[in-house]
């Protein structure tokens, strides 16, 4: 079998598996997000936290809880990183520098997992498992919680209540993420991923040199890194590292894990609004965008245009032999379509257009299928914008799922959409205007601009993958990217929760003959079109100076 046909089967098998998981996983998420019963462990947790699990919050109360949890998380992680040398299992590593600790604390709390550090020489084991791994769970759960609040806004009427943040957070962590993490971690160990608390051991190689083989609680972090669409690697090489991603089948499993929640959440959405067809329509929108992107990255990588790939005879630089070019390309597309940012090959070394697609994937706002939770609320905001555009075309008040999309809703949705491009373009512009920020580029010319553009796009969209040639561990990038990640995560969350509150308060309008049917192919096509047009209009000038200038 040729590598290309194996790559096609790789994609096809993933599609089959994700389609098979859609209903059961989505139904399970629905039960978790709507069930009335609390388990005994959960009751204990609520007692310690001091909250009443049966009391719900208004959108602003929910938002305050999200903000409080995020603030405490950033602060806790910052202090943890600064003091790691005083704690156990630090492997003798010094405290993380202030600017890098700020960047890392924000990065993991916001589900970005941008890493300006080389993990194997910076982090001790304790901070990896009790600091970073915890946020891998919590930040994913926060995303799902916020998505659930928005869906409740659509599903409910004449109420101010959108759910209880603490219940959503704890349930998603304990009922969804933890069970999969336990099973997944053991599967990864069975494939060869490392799981110990050792600092590593020296080996004496056949050639007579000494090689220090590292240790660490890797598998337990690896599985939630993917399943929670986090992406922060235990080692610098991330999922290219044989101890994180030992075999071709773990590579498949990683792609599956990082997509399954985001692709199944539309099912939970459909159940919650009482119409499974609405959920399916959203999932189909995500799938169309995702398949297009996966095929494009594969096509560009297999065609291997560009001087160096032509000299090599394949786009093999930065690619592991055990994965091969096509299956690495699929991973690259999947990790940037979701907000994961794990990498199993070096995106910076991709062909110019093969590397442009991951960049464009993030620019879509990560909605195809996006991060755990953030993908669903992102695409629902775009659906709101689409019904507004459609309403303008026919000249009637737009509505979605029985809710009027009035001035307030459209303002919130538009501000949501504008937040990330503003952060990306202002951030990149400021960096290009600064001499020391420019000095961090590894490659020159358009490819250097792509590196900086990729960094700000990755941070603002909370992806975390990198065109890793950029020397991002400088006080400029640590500080500005940290700020961009924080605003890029929390401002959209506030706008989404505001939208949830305003929708929940409405009296539903009965559908009429003029109502746009939001479960039909016409609507699916319109949302896909709106997403692509919005992204193209926003980012084309920046893309033209970077990857397009290089690749065309």
């Amino acid at each position, binding site marked *: *079998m040729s590598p290309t046909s*194996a790559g096609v089967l*790789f994609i096809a098998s993933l599609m089959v598996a994700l389609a098979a998981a859609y209903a059961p996983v989505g139904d399970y998420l629905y039960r978790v997000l709507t069930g009335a019963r609390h388990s005994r462990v959960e009751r204990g*947790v609520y007692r*310690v*936290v001091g909250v009443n699990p049966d009391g719900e919050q208004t959108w602003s109360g929910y938002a305050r*809880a999200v903000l*409080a*949890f995020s603030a*405490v*998380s950033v602060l*806790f992680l910052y202090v943890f990183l600064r003091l790691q040398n005083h704690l156990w299992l630090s492997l003798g590593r010094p405290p993380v520098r202030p600017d890098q600790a700020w960047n890392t604390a924000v990065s993991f709390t916001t589900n970005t997992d941008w890493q300006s550090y*080389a993990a194997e*020489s910076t982090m001790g084991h304790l901070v990896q*498992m009790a600091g970073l*791994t*915890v946020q891998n769970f919590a930040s994913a759960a926060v995303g799902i919680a916020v998505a659930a609040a928005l869906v409740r806004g659509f599903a409910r009427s004449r109420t101010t209540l959108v759910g209880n943040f603490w219940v959503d957070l*704890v349930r998603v962590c*304990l009922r969804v993420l*933890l069970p999969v993490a336990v099973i997944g971690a053991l599967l990864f160990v*069975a494939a060869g991923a490392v*799981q110990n608390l050792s600092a*590593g051991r*020296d080996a004496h*190689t*056949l*050639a007579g040199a000494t090689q*220090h*083989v*590292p240790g660490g*609680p890797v*598998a337990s972090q690896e599985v939630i890194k993917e399943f929670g669409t986090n992406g922060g690697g235990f080692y610098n*090489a991330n999922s*290219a590292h*044989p101890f994180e991603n*030992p075999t*071709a*089948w773990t590579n498949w499993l990683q792609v599956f894990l990082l997509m399954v929640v985001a692709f199944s959440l539309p099912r939970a959405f459909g159940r919650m609004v009482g119409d499974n067809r609405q959920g399916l329509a959203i999932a189909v929108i995500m799938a169309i965008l995702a398949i297009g992107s996966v095929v494009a990255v594969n096509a560009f990588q297999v065609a291997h*245009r560009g001087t*160096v790939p032509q*000299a*090599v*005879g394949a786009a093999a*630089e*930065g*690619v*592991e*032999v*055990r*994965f*091969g070019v096509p299956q690495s390309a699929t991973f690259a597309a999947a990790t940037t379509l979701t907000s994961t940012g794990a990498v199993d090959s*070096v995106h*910076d*070394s991709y062909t110019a257009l093969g590397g442009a697609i991951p960049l464009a994937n993030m620019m879509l706002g990560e909605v195809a299928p996006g991060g755990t939770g953030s993908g669903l609320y992102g695409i629902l905001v775009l659906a709101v914008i689409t019904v507004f555009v459609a309403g303008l075309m026919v000249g009637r008040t737009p509505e979605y799922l029985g809710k009027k999309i009035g001035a307030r809703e459209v303002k919130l949705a538009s501000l949501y959409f504008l937040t990330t491009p503003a952060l990306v373009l202002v951030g990149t512009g400021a960096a290009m205007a600064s001499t020391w920020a420019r000095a961090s580029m*590894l*490659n020159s010319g358009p*490819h250097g601009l792509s590196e900086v553009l990729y960094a700000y796009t990755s941070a603002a969209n909370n992806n975390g993958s990198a*065109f*890793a040639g950029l020397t991002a561990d400088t006080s400029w990038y640590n500080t500005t990217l940290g700020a961009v990640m924080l605003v890029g995560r929390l401002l959209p969350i506030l706008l989404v929760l505001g939208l949830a509150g305003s929708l929940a308060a409405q009296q539903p309008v009965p559908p009429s003959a003029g109502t746009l049917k939001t479960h039909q192919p016409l609507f699916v096509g319109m949302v896909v079109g709106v997403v692509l047009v919005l992204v193209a209009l926003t980012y084309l000038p920046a893309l033209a100076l970077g990857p397009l200038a*290089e690749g065309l």
Partner: protein
Amino acid sequence: MRLPHWLSAHLAALRALLVLTALLGIAYPLAVTAVARAPGLSHHADGSPVTAGGRRVGSALIGQSFTGADGRPLARYFQSRPSAAGPGNGYDPAASGGSNLGPNSVVDRGPDRPSLLTQVCARSRAVAVLEGVDGRRPYCTRDGVGAVLAVFHRDGVTGPVTRVVSLNQGCPAVPFVAAYRGVPVECARTAEDYAHGVVTPIRGDAPATPVVPADAVTSSGSGLDPHISPAYAKLQVNRVARVRGTTVDKVAELVDRHTAGRVLGFLGEPAVNVLDLNLDLDRTYPYRG
């Protein structure tokens, strides 16, 4: 005393974070670590160590370089891929990662910072010399650097060509082509700035599918790739057989035995684990150098 509302909300958040840290940051990883001690899992959990003669010689999953103290390949061993993990021959697990150089990295920036193209060309030539095969590649000179010209035009990027420099061939090297569009090609001088020339890679007449395979001239994403492609292993069989005083067929058979196909027939690519293969070679056909 009643706490202000904003403070009690943050204290609740802190308590929630501490509970989650205890459950997900301590209990969960330690439980997985404990279960991973089970027979069948513990070998992997410990990093798949490989021992030979009672000594730990490495990990089955982490590549290593088979070069002497001088950095030159040890001819008795199959060679791993190039690696960007750490200086020298790489394969330093404390510095995992790729080169991060882009597809148009074609102009060298001094002897310490060769372009990706020149690295590819130099590796191709070195492998070809070691294995006694044809090392030509598109866009490479015969002396193993990137074949790239700076073409100066009268009016910037248009107009007749006024001057041509072979950017990666420092003087006194002889340029890989004598003339370009009728203008004689010069070698590059370190003191001069060629930024105004149009960077023009020259394809040359090398075959599109070079004899030296792709994985032999590129570094992996981790810099710790334990595998090489079956094609690169095959290329090395003659040399290893000769140095070890055995037949090509016997070594080729050993390579076949250490070639893993795709999982389930379609996952990944066929690959040869270099450390396993070299250990088996040492056992089966010991080197008497």
